[in-house]
């Protein structure tokens, strides 16, 4: 690991200044991803600004929704009574991620900012445009069974690894950030980016901007929800593919639906057209299959991930079936 400075401010503005004014400074919260990246020489910050003392851990009611502090721990959020009542999908997605030990360290803001798990990104001796722009994408013609089927570019086919973010994009969350130019709100769907020609940029955060909270509006999705994560072992693995599904059902007719996929794109992948196709339909397997077909439109596979073209719709159907039957 490289040598670095370490500061631990107690006020948000001090933290923002510390990062905004220093090209080589970065925030650290739980550190569950950043420390790994530093140990491997992938991230080489010269200054770490530890934000764990900032007062950003609260989970509270705010207007017509919940406001979750950026430093609330993944395990705290997953166990929170209000979250479980009002946004059970978020709790399910959080508990599908990582391990209990990691969830006890990882924060909400950090979870959103975790880097891809693409093997080429993690190996300094391999080409990777995300790690080192201009070196090429190792996965494009390499071993790409974990990689994207939507929204990729020829510069990068990596996927975003977060489970939590798949639920948050489905739930129409908003990210609250505070930065050198003041505060702003970013709709969750616009928070992460597609790779395009700049895969080194994962999000639309500006230098020095600090995530302070996530707002989730109250909605009808308190019962018929499910997070279906398909992975190679029963626990503690990144998703081959995952689906967040939420339904509002009345008299077996779907009044509203939310659907998003993980493990398929450079960002959590909201399936708006598929959602719309479900509205007014009966909550049956046939409706779910039709929605799944719509969801997969435009998907394209690489050498080793063609299975996702089938696993995707299957998992959507399974998630919707489970959500519909949730009591």
């Amino acid at each position: 690991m490289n040598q670095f400075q370490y500061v631990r401010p107690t006020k948000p503005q001090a933290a923002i200044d510390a990062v905004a004014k220093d090209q080589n400074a970065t925030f650290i919260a739980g550190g569950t991803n950043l420390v790994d990246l530093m140990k491997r020489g992938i991230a080489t910050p010269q200054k770490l600004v530890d934000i764990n003392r900032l007062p950003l851990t609260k989970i509270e009611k705010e207007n017509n929704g919940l406001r979750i502090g950026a430093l609330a721990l993944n395990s705290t959020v997953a166990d929170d009574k209000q979250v479980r009542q009002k946004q059970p999908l978020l709790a399910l997605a959080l508990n599908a991620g990582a391990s209990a030990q990691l969830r006890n360290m990882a924060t909400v803001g950090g979870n959103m900012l975790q880097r891809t798990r693409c093997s080429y990104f993690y190996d300094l001796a391999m080409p990777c445009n995300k790690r080192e722009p201009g070196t090429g994408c190792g996965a494009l013609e390499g071993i790409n069974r974990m990689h994207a089927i939507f929204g990729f570019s020829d510069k990068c086919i990596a996927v975003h690894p977060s489970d939590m973010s798949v639920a948050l994009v489905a739930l129409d969350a908003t990210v609250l950030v505070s930065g050198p130019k003041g505060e702003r709100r970013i709709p969750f769907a616009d928070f992460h980016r597609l790779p395009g020609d700049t895969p080194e940029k994962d999000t639309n955060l500006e230098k020095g901007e600090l995530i302070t909270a996530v707002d989730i509006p109250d909605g009808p999705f308190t019962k018929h929800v499910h997070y279906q994560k398909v992975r190679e072992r029963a626990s503690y693995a990144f998703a081959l593919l995952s689906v967040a599904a939420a339904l509002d059902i009345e008299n077996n007719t779907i009044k509203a639906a939310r659907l998003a996929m993980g493990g398929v794109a450079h960002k959590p992948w909201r399936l708006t057209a598929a959602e719309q196709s479900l509205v007014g339909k009966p909550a049956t397997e046939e409706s779910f299959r039709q929605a799944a077909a719509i969801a997969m439109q435009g998907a394209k596979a690489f050498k080793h991930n063609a299975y996702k073209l089938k696993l995707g719709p299957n998992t959507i159907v399974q998630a919707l079936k489970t959500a519909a039957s949730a009591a």
Partner: protein
Amino acid sequence: MKEQAQNKQIGAPMDRVDGRLKVTGGAKYSAEYELPNMAYAVLVGSTITKGRLTGIDTKAAEKAPGVLAVITHFNSPKVPGFDTAGKDPSQPATVGGPLKIFKDDKIRYNDQPIAVVVADSWERARFAARLVKGQYAPEKHKTNLEANASEAFLPTAAKKNPKHPMNDYQRGQVDAYKTGAIKLESEYVIPTEVHHPMELQAITAHWEAPDRLTLYDKTQGTLATRRDFAKEWNLPEENVKVIATFVGGAFGNALHSWPHESAAIIAAKVVNRPVKLMLTREQMFTNVGYRPYTWQKLGMSATADGKITAITHESVGQTSTYEEFTESTLAQTRMMYQSPNVTTRYRLASLDVCSPIWMRGPGEATGAFALESAMDEMAHLLNLDPLEFRLRNYTEQDPEKNKPWSTKFLKECYQLGAERVGWNKRQLKPGSLRDGEWLIGYGMGVGTFGAHRGAATVGAQLRPDGTVLLQCATTDIGPGTGTVMTQIAAETLGLDPKKIRFELGNSSFPKAGTQGGSSTVNSVGPATQEACLALKEKLRTLAGAAFASAKKEDVTLTDGYLALSGSPTTRVAYADLIKQGGDKAVTVEAKPGPEGQKYSMYSFSVHFAEVRVHELTGEVRVSKLVSCADAGTIINEKTAGNQMKGGAVGGIGMALMEAAHIDDRFGRYVTKDFADYHVPVHADSPDVQVAFVNQPDPHVNALGTKGIGEIAIIGVAPAIANAIFNATGKRIRELPITPDKLI
């Protein structure tokens, strides 16, 4: 109760003698030795796969804080044994040898060490290691087995010796399955699997004098390691001491001497300080062996009434360019089933990779995946229950060696396992059972491994405090060697196990082989037993008239006294024996007798799996796993059961998730951590049920043991693969069986 326990130690589920030390952190592993003036070493690996090193930029590393030395092939001291190795006329013809680190500019595999950085702290060494940059002249490399299978060859050892077991085998007619009435021909692939014991490979090398070397090393054989490094440095063996008191798992990867060990010894020489070198988890993928990627083809024919008429089993396993690694992939096929015609052909493909090394159930576990899958395929073709098919082809004597089995209780294992798993629920037609979206299936797989026994020596002495100390150079990589030896000694002596201490893991102790091939209890067990008998006999001769006429077997050691069973008043206090002076110690070697000429000796196991496969997502859950073994006498039901469970969990990993992938364009692994290389977590394993037949084998040794370590995993992967077929009708012949293969 206590009385009973004292009389019957063998078989008792005794707690591990070192359990408390292990769970409290008191057990010291090889990375945990701290010596005065210690330095720390970190390896730098090649980023190309094949070619030459044209230069190495070490300037920045040398200037980094705390750095003591950066050693490369440009400045490494000459290792004298590197020049003489292979030139010893008493050694068999060369089939290569371990990599000679820093000897030349050649790159033979990706991440081959090109430099070692030594610093005053591990962190500083690790930092500086990243500053070392190699310059290369790359050459075209080969890392894909299938692409190079056409160049596969018969191992050199087999070419030179027609009796070598790696030669082609034939009984009856060649490839007779091709003309069989009902036949199948299938290809199977197992990927590279990596041992990954919890404890990383680590060594501390200490030159106590210019010609005296002490190694605190992770090894499965203290004497093998001593021999290798004595040779490397042209030292008398007694000048090298190897200490491996605790080994945190190994599964075979510490059965070989690796470049990092040589690097630590060279580094200690250069900086003239003790040097500790620990591999990183990433380096555990690249520099300490693995189960080799293996392609297999199995042809089988049978009659309509379920008698096998012929089997042909071929395999191509990968090895490195500098060492020919072979394993018994085809052994089980030659002896497990009654078949008049059997052909086996074993080949190697040399690739630009690090050498493989035996991984639990070496060879046999690979071969059993093909054989036991093919048995299931044939049973399905015949519309026969796979257990019934195996019974119809059961061997009552070894068809390969034409000898009687020393013992074989595999039928009993079949029965025990079938009952426990609920085999009667299995339907002949795949896809018949379901629970909602989960398809349910049952499968079985058989395993076998030679009941190997080697010579071993154990020292035993009565101490003034009335305890008995036993010593042996054997190691304990986790099965509980110290515990079971204590039990054997306690039963033989009639002494409370708490009064016995069995020390191991030190090359200065009496000789024993490496802990590998399920041979430790078979070999060291009888040596312990005979040493204890000899000790009693020695004490008896010192104990006076009352004992002189007593029968040997009546003499026992009790708490404080040498006593005669059946005559409680006849006893002599240890204190009095000790006072007599003289030696109260014995050292006894126990060797296998001629029984091996008369009998064919094997352990046997069968594994039954119940799996649930999600029809939409392809996820597999092993809901039941039952492992039954004929391993001879069970010395400790608890530690033996523990070994069986560990093997079964290893088998789940092999079947469902373990695979190390190389990107052949670069020759470099893309799976270099536990996020990419999956091993089972708790949630992947059911509560594995274990049953032992527990019948002594009187021919292997007087204890009746046959060995457990390998048969615990051999046959598990095909049991799961067969259960998946029974659940889904999908036959997956390439491991691991991940969800993408099932949807």
